[in-house]
C-alpha cells in the first residue's frame, strides 16, 4: 500500500532534529531504521505529515567503552551490535539477542533506539536492556534526561518521551566478573517476532551465591517486563536447580501474556515463560561459571 504523502526533513544534528520535532509536534515522526515505522505507514496506522530522518544526524551511531559501562548511540544498527567485539567481550547477551532479531536485511537498517522507542512488547531489545539494568538518555528541547529502562516503557507503543524528545543513547553497566547471560526466544520460524522471549543475566560470588539477577520478558505483557519476583527469588541465594525452578515459576506468575490468534493462548505463553526462564537461567549460570556455549 502507498503511504500517505509527507514532507521529508533531514536534519544534520541532534539539535536540529529536536527543534524540528518540537515545532511540528504530533504532525511529525522521526524515522531511524524505518523497519517498524515504514510498515506502519503502509498500513496507515501512522500518517505523519512530516518525516524527520535521523539517518543523516551525526554522532548517533557508536558503541563506546566508557569505564564501567558501554554506551550505544540510538542509531546503532542491530547488525553492528551483533558483530561488535566490544559487545561480545563485555555483554555477549546483546550480540546473542541481536542475532535473533528479524533477518539480516532488517538488522542492517533497524536500530536499537528505534526498537526501544517503538515500545513493542514483542521487540527483543527491551527485555535484554532490562536484564542488564540499562539506562536511556533522552534529548529534547530542554535538559537531557537519563532514566532506567523500566521507566521508559509506559505502555504498548508508548515510550516515556515528551514533546520534542528523542532517545539518543543506551547505557549498559558492564557486568562484574563471574557474570553470564542468555537470551532465549521462541519463534514460529526464523526471523519471526517472539512468541515469548526471556533475557537472563546473573553475577555470582565465589561461593556461587547470586549477587545480581536481571530477568526481562519479551512478548509476555503490554511492554517488555522485568520479572521482579523471579529476580528477588535468586538474589542472595545459591543459584541451583531449586532456586532456578522457583524463579521460573515466579516469572511465569508475574508475566501478563494475552491470547493472540497467531502465536498462541495466554496459558501457552505463560507455560513458555516458565520453560524459557528456566533454560535461560541455566545457560546464564553455566556461562557465569565458565561453561556453556
Amino acid at each position, binding site marked *: 500500500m*502507498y503511504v500517505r*504523502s509527507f514532507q521529508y526533513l533531514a536534519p544534520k544534528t541532534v539539535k536540529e532534529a529536536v527543534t524540528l520535532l518540537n515545532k511540528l509536534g504530533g504532525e511529525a515522526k522521526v524515522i531511524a531504521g*524505518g*523497519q517498524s515505522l515504514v510498515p506502519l505507514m503502509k498500513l496507515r496506522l501512522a500518517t505523519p505529515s512530516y518525516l524527520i530522518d535521523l539517518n543523516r544526524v551525526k554522532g548517533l551511531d557508536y558503541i563506546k567503552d566508557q569505564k564501567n559501562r558501554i554506551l550505544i548511540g540510538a542509531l546503532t544498527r542491530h547488525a553492528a551490535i551483533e558483530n561488535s567485539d566490544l559487545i561480545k567481550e563485555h555483554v555477549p547477551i546483546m550480540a546473542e539477542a541481536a542475532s535473533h532479531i*528479524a533477518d*539480516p536485511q532488517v538488522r542492517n*537498517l533497524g536500530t536499537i533506539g528505534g526498537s526501544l522507542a517503538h515500545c513493542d512488547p514483542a521487540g527483543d531489545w527491551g527485555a535484554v536492556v532490562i536484564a542488564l539494568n540499562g539506562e536511556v538518555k533522552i534529548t529534547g528541547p530542554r535538559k537531557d534526561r537519563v532514566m532506567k529502562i523500566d521507566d521508559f516503557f509506559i505502555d504498548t507503543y508508548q515510550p516515556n518521551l515528551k514533546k520534542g524528545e528523542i532517545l539518543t543513547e543506551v547505557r549498559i553497566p558492564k557486568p562484574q566478573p563471574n557474570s553470564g547471560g542468555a537470551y532465549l526466544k521462541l519463534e514460529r520460524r526464523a*526471523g519471526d517476532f517472539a512468541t515469548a522471549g526471556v533475557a537472563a543475566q546473573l553475577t555470582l560470588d565465589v561461593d556461587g551465591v547470586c549477587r545480581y539477577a536481571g530477568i526481562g520478558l519479551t512478548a509476555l505483557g503490554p511492554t517488555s517486563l522485568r520479572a521482579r519476583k523471579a529476580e528477588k527469588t535468586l538474589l542472595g541465594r545459591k543459584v541451583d536447580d531449586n532456586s532456578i525452578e522457583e524463579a521460573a515459576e515466579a516469572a511465569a506468575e508475574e508475566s501478563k501474556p494475552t491470547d493472540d490468534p497467531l502465536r498462541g493462548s495466554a496459558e501457552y505463553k505463560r507455560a513458555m515463560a516458565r520453560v524459557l526462564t528456566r533454560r535461560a537461567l541455566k545457560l546464564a549460570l553455566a556461562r557465569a561459571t565458565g561453561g556453556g556455549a
Partner: protein
Amino acid sequence: MARKKQLLETAETYVSVSMKVNGVPCSAKIEPRTLLVHFLRDVLGLTGTHWGCDTGNCGACTVIMNGKSVKSCNIFAVQADGAEIITIEGLAKDGQLHPIQEAFWENHGLQCGFCTPGFIMQAYWLLQQNPNPTEEEVRRGISGNICRCTGYQNIVKAILTAAEKMKR
C-alpha cells in the same frame, strides 16, 4: 505559523534525489513517499528488483545500499539520496554472468524465478561478509528471503558453489 513556514522551507512536495545505481549516476524529482523499490522499478525502469510482499518479509526486493543488503520496500528513495545502489542488473559484466548467477543456473537454484534477484543480492552481500560460509551460515544468511518453489536446497547449494567459484 510564519516561523513554522520558515523552518520548513526546505520541505517540498517533490524532492530531487540523486544516487549511483550500478555505477551510473541517476537523478529524478519524486514524491518523498516513493519507496526505493518503486524508484528503481518505475522511475529507472530497473524491473529486475522484484516487489513481493511489500511488508519487509519476503526479501524479493533486496538490493545493496552503501555496501549493505536492505529490503528496498522498507526504505524511502529520499533516504537513499547520495547512496550507491547495486541491483541484480549490476552483477553481470560484459555479457558474462556473475559467478553467483552462474551457480544459481547450474544448480537449479530457481524455478519460477520471482525470488531469485533477492536471493542473489543477499548472497552477494553474504559472500562479501563471509567468503567462506558453512551451510549453516548460508541458511542463516538467507533467512530474510522466502522462496515458494525450490524448497531452498538448491539455493543453498548454489550459494556454496558460488563461494567456491569466487575463490578461483
